[in-house]
């Protein structure tokens, strides 16, 4: 087990290192931040002065090793767009908002997907099952940003039940963006729950439970669901990554002050330090989540080992 964990940790570090090269290179290839940030009237001399002040005039490999060296200490440099602030301070300021939104989105996904998934399995090939499949179809085919705009239009602008945007109204402001982000996961999670439930419903111990006269609701919701939940649980690691990525468009639409929106603004203005800090943080979250699930999986199932 120890060797497996060491191997997976090493693999994760290597992945992260490769990612730093990719992120650094792509950020530079996307253009010069001075072409976005400088006023139209700025002269070439102004551009050169700032390039020197920001260290952008140094050779790329020097910039890269400086970036890596500083990144190891959590220092991604100063934001070029929000002057006077470090890139990491902006990310850390936003991370709780994105994590909270992702958390609520997970709850929304579970709250919708699990009951529908369970009932679709129990009532297989009935109208309920077909409706469940339809929901899954919509969930996977509707773009999150479009769904977000529609939810905003109906429930905020027309009905006035929820705030239009931002997070300043408290818990109620989480509902619409969380539904918009979580809806895609509803589809995937529901299908997973349904297929797992179908497997479990057909097992001997479930038949035994029924023979013993245990009420059907108890058989389904207690005995079957508990066993069927293992597969969806492992899916959570992927969900976390998807929710982080999904937050980019939804945070933009709902003016949510999270990391996703920070990433968009930074990318548009070619704010290298912030782009690098955001992407590395996202990747780190994703890698750690996958690592933990892999380790947990290996712990739960001793058959899983890397040679």
């Amino acid at each position: 087990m120890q060797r497996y964990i060491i191997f997976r940790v090493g693999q994760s570090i290597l992945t992260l290192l490769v990612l730093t090269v990719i992120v650094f290179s792509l950020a530079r290839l996307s253009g010069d931040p001075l072409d976005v940030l400088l006023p139209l009237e700025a002269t070439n001399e102004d551009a050169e002065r700032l390039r020197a002040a920001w260290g952008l005039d140094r050779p790329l490999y020097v910039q890269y090793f400086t970036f890596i060296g500083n990144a190891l200490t959590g220092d991604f440099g100063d934001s070029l767009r929000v002057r006077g602030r470090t890139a990491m301070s902006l990310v850390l300021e936003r991370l709780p908002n994105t994590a909270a939104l992702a958390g609520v989105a997970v709850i929304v996904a579970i709250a919708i997907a699990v009951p529908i998934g369970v009932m679709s399995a129990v009532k297989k090939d009935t109208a309920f099952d077909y409706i469940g499949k339809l929901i899954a179809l919509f969930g996977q085919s509707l773009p999150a940003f479009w769904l977000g705009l529609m939810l905003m239009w109906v429930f905020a602008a027309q009905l006035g039940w929820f705030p239009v945007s931002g997070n300043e109204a408290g818990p109620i402001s989480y509902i619409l963006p969380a539904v918009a982000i979580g809806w895609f996961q509803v589809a995937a999670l529901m299908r997973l729950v349904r297929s797992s439930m179908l497997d479990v419903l057909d097992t001997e111990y479930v038949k035994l439970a029924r023979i013993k006269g245990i009420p059907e609701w108890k058989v389904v919701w207690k005995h079957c669901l508990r066993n069927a939940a293992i597969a969806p649980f492992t899916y959570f690691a992927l969900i976390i990554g998807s929710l982080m990525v999904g937050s980019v468009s939804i945070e933009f639409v709902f003016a949510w002050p999270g990391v996703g929106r920070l990433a968009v603004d930074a990318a548009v203005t070619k704010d290298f330090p912030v782009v690098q800090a955001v992407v590395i943080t996202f990747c780190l979250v994703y890698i750690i989540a996958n690592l933990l699930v892999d380790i947990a999986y290996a712990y739960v199932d001793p058959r899983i080992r890397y040679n």
Partner: protein
Amino acid sequence: MVRPTILAAVAAALLLVIGVACGGTSQEQTAPAAQSQPEQPQTQPQEQQQAPAAEQATAADPPTAVPTVIATATPSPTNTPTAAQETTALGGTLRIATIPPVQQLTGSWLGTTTSANTQVRPFTDPLVHTDRFDGSLVPGLATSWKANEDGTQWTFFLRDDVDFHGEWGPFTAHDVPTSAALIIREDAIATDTGLFRGLFGDTEEELLTNIVALDDNTVQFNLKTPNSLMDFFAGAQQGNLFVYSKNQYETDGIEQLQENPAGVGPWVFESRTIDVNVKYTRNDDHYRRAPFFQAMEYVLIPEETTRLAQLQTSAVQIGEVSRELHLDAQSSGLAVLQSELPSIQVAFIIGGIYNPEEAGPCLTEEFQNCFYQPDEPHLNPMVREAINRSINRQEINEQLFGGIGRQHTVWGYHPALPGYNPRWTEEFDEKYGFDPEKARQLLQESGYEGYKLKLLLTELPGVPEMIPMGEAAFTYLSNVGIDVETEAIKWSDYRAKYYRPGKTHGTIAATRGTYRPADITLRFYNRSGGAGFWRTSVDPMTDILYDTATQSVDPEVKAQALSDLGDLKFDLYSEVPIVWLPAQIVVAPAAIGEMVWPGNINASFTHTEYITPAAQ
């Protein structure tokens, strides 16, 4: 036993994350509470106190007055407030949904004029104010000003009754050199950084020898080269010279000045949360106009349909919404207001006609040697006329701008600005009118029939119609036989690839500029040296006339030079002017009574202190 444990642990961790995150909203950087000022007589210009209720400008409204942008040759008494007048805040919090500025800042030296005018202008003032009705330069912190005969020395006479917010003491002339020095800092990114370095020196030490406080209420600017627009640069229209407290800078340092700046504006900076909002409170004691609202908040929302929804739900009272959503806004009971003056000029720029950097100053009979390529089709005025003749301006105005555009005859010039020649208006249809047949004929006569032209499809903030305008131009130009190649390109890439390295020759691209004295625009587009990236000059007299206009403080000489330069541009078809557009903003009529702003300041809206709540 393992599975429930893991599930429980995950669930607990999830709840913990949510709990922490829900309670962990972004920290606001809060300014120290402003000292409540003792009740003092409100000193306010009588003229502005009694300003007539503004009528909502319509597309047909002509500019209301000629802005005064020429230096006053001698000091003259201005509308210094004399009467003590009391003002009372009527409204609660004025909430405005805005596009997040490219640079979120409290220091005007850290971003473009547009960013500064949006965020800095509420809490601090420039020396020279801009009239909200006619856009003219009027006294602000300076009650009057004068220039010497050759425009190398400007003296500003300052108010003696203004205090900085908080505990930073009175505003004096000593605050001005300190504020100006911020603009030339090594890390400055202001619109005027290059200009101020050129006029006053590259270092703070040098600048402080050229901008000096003569006494507490007089500051003198000694310029390295003559400039007739120093009062303009001391204002907010183009400039970055907002006043900061020398006392705060020296006591707290630059970081604190950026985080919690004390100003002298009608609003007191309260706090900002990056990408969320900027908050201000009312300065009850402002010398010009204490706001009609108790507080103001900019709500920063990137998606415009979200801004519109905020307006529709009354979460905000004012919002920046693009023209394509105006009908939706109006159908839901919102009103679209326009600035008093035109705000934006839109044109196609025929780029890079000559290259003075390789050929030296283009002021001699060897002007032809300055051109990039001797056989460049755009050097031929007949080709440029053909391009102009091929464009259907009326169709562009009606289809893309909803008919709100006003005639634009010469890039950089407006009928209400100095140097405009009425002949251009009279002759425009005759010389520039849509005539594809004539365009084809001109191309044939010039020998450039079917020549290759690169049309760059790019967009600048404020005019999303630039891309469809370019697409329309593709049709118009192709229709007269020009072999048009298009390239969709982001503005930043256009800048990097074409105009910053001076390689705009052979291209045409839509652009937009602001309403400002013509020489400011010409400096950027037409002059051969300095910031003349586009280099669209078509005559060797361009630089001579430009220098005469910029350096003369005699209004007549200046206007004549500008007029002569405009004649050259008009007669030689140096650009493809399209329309003048007003600034527009969407408001909730149920909440907003009057909102008047000139539109000639680089920002979507200004003069927020004058916005009144709707009568209940």
